[in-house]
């Protein structure tokens, strides 16, 4: 069972005679990401868990630590950030205003064109 010099052997569990408690990240990626998914009576939105896993993949200890080392992509991720959700809504609204304007202008052009030549 003795691994070679380059292999740092740890144990996922005490089962099998290991001595180190399992790494939290290893446990979380298994119990949250894997394992059999059957919806129980208590409905936990799986998306919530999914979302959480993403966050955890990034950093366990604290988001602040990640921010300190310059990792902040979740701040721009619509799933993870209320701010960007609001921004997205705002952008969507701006988009639809543009579409409306576009539509009105197209109607206008069409009206003008059909006034000049009798076709679309």
């Amino acid at each position, binding site marked *: 069972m003795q691994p070679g010099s380059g292999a740092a052997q740890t144990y996922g569990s005490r089962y099998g005679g290991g001595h180190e408690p399992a790494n939290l*990240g290893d446990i979380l990626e298994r*119990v949250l990401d894997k394992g059999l998914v059957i919806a129980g009576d*208590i409905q936990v939105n799986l998306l919530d868990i999914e979302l959480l896993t993403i966050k955890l993949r990034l950093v366990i200890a604290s988001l602040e630590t990640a921010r300190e080392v310059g990792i902040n992509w979740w701040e721009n991720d619509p799933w993870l950030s209320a701010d960007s959700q609001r921004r997205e809504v705002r952008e969507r609204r701006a988009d639809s205003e543009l579409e409306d304007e576009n539509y009105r202008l197209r109607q206008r052009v069409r009206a003008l064109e059909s006034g000049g030549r009798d076709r679309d």
Partner: protein
Amino acid sequence: MTEPRGLWVYAVTEQIPAGSLDQVAGVGGGQVRTVVADGLTAIAEDVPLEEFGEAALRRNLEDLAWLEETARAHHRVIDAVVRQSPVVPMRLATVYSGDASVAAMLAGRADDFRAALGRMSRRQEWGVKVYAAERAEANAAPAHGGTEDTGSGGKGAAYLRRRRDQLSAQQDARRELTVSAELVHGALSQLAVDSALHPPQAPQLTGTSAPMLLNAAYLLDEQRSEDFTAAVGALAKSHPALRLELTGPWPPYSFAGVEQEEEAW
């Protein structure tokens, strides 16, 4: 009735000797018990909905301290069960309203559970993470002191050439590492019944600055685990640019919820 309760389900197994989980504390700190139906046994715990109900779970899952404690407890129970008997582990936070609905779940999927338990029988999950060894990173940047810095184009062009060589050396080193990691995965897969790839963990999670190149899980026949650990050691030796980390044995988390079942269920 004091407070509303639910049933947190850890895993499904065929049967487990009475009393074998007496010493194991569950997620709610209570006694772990069983619900039996159709020749199958669900390992469960009565939990207060005040902490494990829908709204509470949504809140608590975002609380990292709570999550850590709960995930460790969930794992601890499943780990205790797998020593006794093959298991199909349930995802964290699978909560039922009571014995009747757990029994209905067991009965409704009895064939699938039995098939999955058959696949897990006398098998173990092992995890292997492959990192770039620190020294490989150092080698990737070639020495640039004391070399000739002339040549056509003068100093600026020489700098750019040097920089380009450095970058391409780094890219080569990186490609080589990736290929080595793939070779390791290929060799280990040969020994396994099945394998699964987890996303590589971020350095913040692993506590090391070395990039993780591979985060794999292997389902092994029990009697092959020694061959497997030996193979990990041998591979570590033959790929000095890599650092291999072996974890396990795990309950078969990464293989219990495989596609076959998801399609059927």
